[in-house]
């Protein structure tokens, strides 16, 4: 049986690195087929970043402005419709992909959602992109509890928000284990436990009816609101 395809959209090396642990976890679970779509001028950087995780782009699109990118993704998804689309953060690439998916009524999963700095100067800021992505996303995967609270303040349903932790730390662990097999990486960040990619992958599988919801990330008691922050349960 062929696995269900989920497209992960990246326009920068950072996005690729933070999406990579989710793709690895999807592969490992064997339920979903992650497909990287690389957008824009940073193709070589992204390809190099993905190669560090033994991943490679499946589709590349040389388009940057919002309109071109929505058009190109819409054309691709006319022919080959994924079960879900995952975008990262608040970039214009992520906004274009989220809108193109929403247009086709493909579920949008937003990784690194909910990070806010109260930017309102222009509608073209990353934060404005993020606020609009939040309104079309079906599933919001956030690295820290504050991001979840930001989304709920914006009217996002708590049941669609999951604190996964930081997939960037997962990526660091993967690279460290490959380059320095005897090394031990630790962090003081309580939201970096190395399981963020697994939680994100399982949440996507659950969204598509292929798995149970992942257990919520344990919230350290020093946050003072642990009981109120266990979203996604």
């Amino acid at each position, binding site marked *: 049986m062929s696995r269900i395809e989920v497209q992960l959209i990246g326009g920068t090396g950072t996005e690729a690195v933070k999406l990579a642990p989710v793709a690895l976890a999807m592969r490992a679970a064997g339920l979903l087929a992650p497909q990287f779509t690389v957008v824009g001028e940073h193709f070589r950087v992204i390809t190099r970043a993905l190669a560090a995780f033994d991943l490679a782009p499946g589709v590349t699109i040389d388009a940057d402005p919002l309109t071109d990118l929505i058009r190109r993704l*819409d054309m691709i998804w006319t022919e080959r419709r994924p079960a879900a689309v995952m975008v990262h953060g608040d970039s214009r690439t992520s906004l274009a992909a989220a809108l193109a998916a929403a247009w086709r009524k493909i579920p949008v999963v937003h990784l690194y959602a909910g990070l806010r700095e109260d930017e309102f100067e222009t509608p073209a800021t990353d934060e404005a992109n993020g606020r609009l992505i939040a309104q079309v996303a079906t599933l919001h995967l956030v690295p820290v509890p504050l991001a979840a609270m930001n989304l709920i303040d914006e009217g996002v349903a708590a049941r669609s928000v999951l604190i996964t932790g930081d997939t960037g730390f997962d990526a660091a662990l993967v690279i460290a284990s490959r380059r320095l097999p005897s090394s031990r990486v630790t962090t003081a960040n309580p939201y970096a436990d190395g399981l963020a990619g697994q939680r994100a992958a399982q949440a996507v599988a659950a969204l598509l009816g292929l798995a149970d919801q992942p257990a919520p990330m344990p919230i350290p008691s020093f946050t003072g609101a642990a009981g109120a922050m266990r979203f996604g349960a």
Partner: protein
Amino acid sequence: MDLVEFYTGSWIGADRDGVRRVLAPDVEVDWNLDAPVDDEELVQSLHRIAVFADSVTVVSRVSRADGAAHVYDLAAPFGTARMAEFVSVHNGRIAEIRQVYDLVAIDRFFPALYDCQ
């Protein structure tokens, strides 16, 4: 000028009759504003935006045979809110409109959008 372009030009130009003319009688309307919506409420809300805004700019428009996707910047006196819109066309009329607003910016810069209802 195609149908969707006429719709866009009509609402930005605060022409309510123009908007009504291109909507199918059973048009499906959906938005993320915290208020119920039907075709007439859509027409009135778009009119309020058009009248209140300093300018409405279509920053992105993608067309296909059965509809279009728009991204608008709605510039109010104290700031700009963004709205995405997906329009479907069937039998020469607009059959479906889905609007997605930046709710935080709308609440901040278009406070009268709800109060007028």
